[in-house]
């Protein structure tokens, strides 16, 4: 997983899965980067081939922090499995979904 700060945005890429197995470590890694100067978050989900409700839960927790800074949580190029989960859980109305 790679975390890259660009201006006021934290970009997360290279993630293959976001499940109960790695949700805690993902959350810790991201939270350490969420300094006051970071307003927005973009999860590049091109490579995520496995995601579950725990992974979604962690994204919601991170989104809450981003929202407190009036920022936007974007999920970029979600794979079908991610899109499916976001649609089923109605989180496609919470996160910004971008396909390039």
């Amino acid at each position, binding site marked *: 997983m790679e975390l890259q700060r660009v201006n006021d945005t934290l970009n997360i890429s290279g993630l293959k899965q976001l499940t*109960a197995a790695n949700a805690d470590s993902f959350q810790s890694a991201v939270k350490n980067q969420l300094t006051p100067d970071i307003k927005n978050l973009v999860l590049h989900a091109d490579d995520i081939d*496995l995601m*579950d*409700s725990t992974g979604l839960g962690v994204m919601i927790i991170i989104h809450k922090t981003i929202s407190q800074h009036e920022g936007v949580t974007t999920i970029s190029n979600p794979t*079908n*499995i991610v*899109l*499916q*989960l976001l*649609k*089923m*859980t*109605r989180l496609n109305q919470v996160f910004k979904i971008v396909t390039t």
Partner: protein
Amino acid sequence: MILICPETPPTPQTLGHSHPAALVSIFGRPLLEHFLMHYADRGITHFDVIASDRPDAVRKFLGNGEKWGVTVTIHAWKEEPGLDKDFSNLTKDSEQPARVDKLPWMNTNSTMGSENWFKDCLKNPPTKNMIRPDYVESKTGIFIGGHSHFPEQTTIIPPCYIGAQVKLGNGCSIGPNVIIEDEAFLESGCEVRESLIGPSTYIGPDLTIDRSIVMHDWVLDWSIGTDHQISDPLLLGNKNSEPVANGILGRMIALIIFILLCPIVIIAALASLRTGKPVIDKRKAVSPVPYKKLTGRSNINYSEFPSLPGYLRRYPQLWSIIKGEFKWVGNRPLNEKEADMLESEYEKMWLDASYGLFSLADLHGVTGNFSEEEKLHSSFYAATQGKESDKNILLKCIFS
């Protein structure tokens, strides 16, 4: 008449993952049964059924055809034949062969499992003499099967066909254009539109199913273009999955561990001398539904070592696993008084699961005081139990 059962693929995995596509249930009956009934009604008395995909499952379903007043011969072929194949070596029957990939009265070219196929099914429901007898039209366009009851806050928008023993949680919104098959369980807050929900499918709370077919933990979503498995028992699942380690292997493992840990008995005896409590506390629980169905017994006796801490006190329940009364993972036992205190239909689901040495409530640290949280977790477990979740519970209880 020749009936050809489709293979998977090209039939979507969602439709064919747990049984042959010809046995996909719609309007309360497998497609194959719709064919038998439709053509038997037209005077066909014998069917040659060609099955290349899991012919044993087709054979088991059809038997000898007696149920429908016909005779059947099942032919297990390596590959699915085309409709234009020459079948004269099978039958001299002049009736056109049919592929069991749609309702027999449907005149459509839609591919099985496609959105158009589903829409065509909804436009062509069974007629009054063909629809399953327990389906009652409760309001215009809303058909509900036997023993299905819904909370008052449920919204149902026609047309909808809901099977037997379907449970809906509070605040569900169903329809329009929805078919829900028998024994499905939808948690509170679910929204289902333009979709088919398969038999015994569990759908987690506050989920939206739109323009999809959902069969257990498989989803075919027409809007996204997916046909895949969602391996998360909190979201989707098979309501009737058997828990892990409840067979001979689980009981053997329990026996081995029982023998290896038998020094605990001495520790329990010494601890009871110190605490003044009895060495062993014998208890009586009401039988959970699965155990009662199997044995006819109304009660289960089990024991604990009251002077030992944590899971060690449950050592005697390894013997309950060996006897087949408990499983490794299940709900914790309830005495008669506690069972009587379960009020809502949802709370009573606690007893729909077998008793276990470890439970979901244990994982959340809420066991033992019959709290609202314990009831919630126990009912949730009963609704969603499955091999994966049992494995997770077992591992986390042991290693946390």
